[in-house]
């Protein structure tokens, strides 16, 4: 009796293990960031030569913004003041805003520290820091594809948003007023403790220039 019970339990356990294995291998392929999973950590230098470590911001909401000041889609949001306004609102509320410049030397949007700082002053931008990712390591970690590509990490370190800045995939600043700004919406929802209603959206813009 207990022998057969043992056998039966063994077979059942083995089958369950098999199912878990299938599910496990299903999840294991692909890689890259996933909304609802811990945001991959990174360490990089900012425009002032200071080291920025994502994990250090635990307890705070962090926005990652891929940028390239030559890209027409980035210009749409900076030329209109849309991005600066959002940065200002966010940082006033204690959000850490990291603008990430991944263009390698020689590519459009490449900035060194002084150039990045000058651009912040010129545009009246309000990021917490400008991260210089000249070897594209952070871009690769996050699989950033376009500028602007936006990510939000909640205070627990979970990735809660990835996608576009809004729902109007154009380079035309005239489309900003009627657009649904996903980042503003998500930050508002996070602040009031609600789940992000649109956590994965279409990121639109120019290709991120990867270091080869």
């Amino acid at each position, binding site marked *: 009796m207990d022998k057969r019970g043992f056998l039966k339990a063994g077979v059942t356990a083995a089958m369950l293990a098999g199912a878990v294995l*299938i599910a496990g*291998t*299903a*999840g294991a392929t692909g*890689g890259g960031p*996933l909304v609802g999973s811990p945001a991959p950590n990174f360490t990089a230098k900012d425009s002032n030569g200071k080291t920025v470590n994502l994990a250090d911001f635990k307890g705070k909401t962090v926005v990652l913004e891929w940028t390239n000041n030559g890209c027409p889609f980035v210009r749409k949001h900076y030329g209109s003041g849309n991005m600066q306004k959002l940065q200002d609102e966010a940082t006033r509320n204690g959000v850490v805003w990291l603008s990430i410049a991944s263009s390698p030397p020689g590519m459009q949007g490449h900035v060194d520290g002084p150039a990045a700082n000058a651009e912040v002053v010129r545009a009246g931008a309000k990021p917490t820091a400008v991260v210089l990712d000249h070897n594209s390591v952070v871009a690769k970690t996050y699989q950033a*594809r376009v500028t602007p590509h936006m990510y939000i990490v909640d205070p627990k370190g979970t990735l809660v948003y990835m996608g576009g800045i809004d729902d109007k995939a*154009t380079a035309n600043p005239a489309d900003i007023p009627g657009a649904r700004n996903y980042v503003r919406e998500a930050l508002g929802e996070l602040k009031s403790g609600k789940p992000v209603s649109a956590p*994965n959206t279409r990121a*639109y813009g120019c290709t991120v220039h990867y270091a080869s």
Partner: protein
Amino acid sequence: MKPVLAKALAAAALAALLCAPLASANPVKTERVTATLESEVAAAAPGEKFWVALRQQIIPKWHTYWINPGDSGLPTEITWKLPAGAAAEPIVWPVPKRIPVGPLVNYGYETDVRLLVPVTAPRDARPGDTLRLEAQARWLVCEEICIPEEATLVLEVPVAAASTIDQNKREGFAAGRAALPTPAPFTAAVAAPGTPQATTTLQIDMPADMAATIKDVYFFSERIDAVVHAARQTATAGRSGLTIALPTGPLPMKADESLSGILHVVEKPEAGGQTHAFAITAKPDPNMRLALAATTTGNAGGDGISILEAMGLALLGGLLLNLMPCVFPILSMKALGLVQSAAAARSQARLHGLLYVAGVLASFLAVAGALLALRAGGESIGWGFQLQSSWFVLLLAYLMFTIGLNLAGLFDFAGGRLAGIGDSLTRRSGGGGAFFTGVLAVVVATPCTAPFMGAALGFALAQPTVTALAIFLALGLGMALPFLLLSLFPQALRFLPRPGPWMERFRQFLAFPMFATAAWLVWVLAQQSGPNGLALALTGMVLIGFAIWLLRQLGGVRKVASRVAYASFAAIALLAALGTIAAIDSPVVAATQSNEKQASDAEWQAWSPQAVEQARAQGKPVFVNFTAAWCITCLVNERTSLSTDAVRNKLALSGVVRLKGDWTRRDKAITDALAEFGRSGVPLYVLYPADKAQKPRVLPQILTEAGILAELDRL
């Protein structure tokens, strides 16, 4: 007031002057793109549809975008200002190009592209009117950097009672239409997992032998981010057609969503080497086999997979094989053997374990060797290839059935060792038995691994020989591992249940997974060989059962004459059962033919050299269509050209005798005929004029309706 009015008038005039050149500009030349609005008709008829194109001539290295731009970019947009009653449809997108940008991929157009738009003239337009079509076009043009550009283009099209083609535009529009995808002659289904980073499986229904003619395939998804644009796509040809594993993108599809796109197919050189682009919409298929989705998910994860990862996955896959209903009973049979010999020397158990591993590995290597040899011979096939031959399926079904009868207790191999060579080998005492148990486990695993491991093995076969062998070995090792561990660590044997009466019950229970497998195999066979195949299989099983029953009687019969009678009847029954294996048909390809095709088939007579001679002797022109059921180009030509009403009517009116040569089974006479025209494969279309003095004309491999009509006009 007067000066004000004058100023206003002057301003209006100035505005008109400033706007006029812009408004009527066509083409518009920007720094990177020359945009032209063109109409195919010189005059449009009221209420009729005609083609308009936005042509973009792009400077070298720059590109504009498809409807799904890929990882970045934007598709070209047109906002129309049309006369009341006129309507413009959405852009009909030409087949895009894959444009890699670093690790990312864009879908777009380089050099010169026509974005075609069907426009309908107003019903109430009158001959003599002019239709003013104004297109406000916006596009993004990119190289490494991107520039948004726009142009307002105006085209005036006269209205006439009947429309006339603009001869200057004929060629351009023909080129534009040639760049469009062809409606797919296949149906398709999609199974989306709903979460990023898993695999979306696209199943294209086509006969297995047609899928086997495909060298390269790429699916352009119309839906943005449903799949990872930059990922390598793994395609496997199998019994159910072509299975494409698409790594799911950041915005996964819902389970009930359809997936539209363009399927880009390149045939193998020996199958014609043509390239096709099919517009295809895959319907969501919740019934698509979970096993299929799960394994393609696990094993075809794209280009990032290293040899070690692939071997790891293969090892896991091998472990899983132990739980398959076809393998577990075998393994258990052996485990029972171990239980019995547990009391015996441990070194012997260890030896048995190693021999079992050797048996499994040898079988996997044999299969891998055969597969690689076939691949070297120019064939690329999936694991399921064994199952494609009906005789093999039937043989396996009989084996399963016989083992099931044995396990159920109908007979014992100890009594008469006549049935199931494989099984009797495993029953051999000593090392030989262990080795053959390993071999049998692999043979028996095939029906289970076919659906499960197709993707992994497809991956292995796409690798260099060494990698492929490594993957097969890992698969085999995984399969042998549990048994090996038991024999190496006999302590674990203590956890195995002790022998007792339960063993007989368990053995009998194990008959049912065997019968279930046999039933499944018979089902597979019914799919392949139809009701007649099913009848043969069931007859064979009855004969096997009868033969076994006869042999069992031998024990109780003393008279030599009776013994001989029983034995001969048993032998006859077994031979008849084996005969069903020889008699079984190969897969029926014709079953997938549609009624429409059969209707047009009726207009064709079978080709033979004599039929050609006979028709020509009667002074009739002859059209010969050399085709094959597995030939994609042939199928496309039949759909787009040969079976259209215009072509069928024209053929009938011209009194053309239509002969079809079916090369599906590589008929020798057709092979020779192909060789006469310097061809080694199908399609081949030959038109013999009625006048015997004229030489036969060979038509292009890719037909168009207009092309055939023009050829028939020349008769």
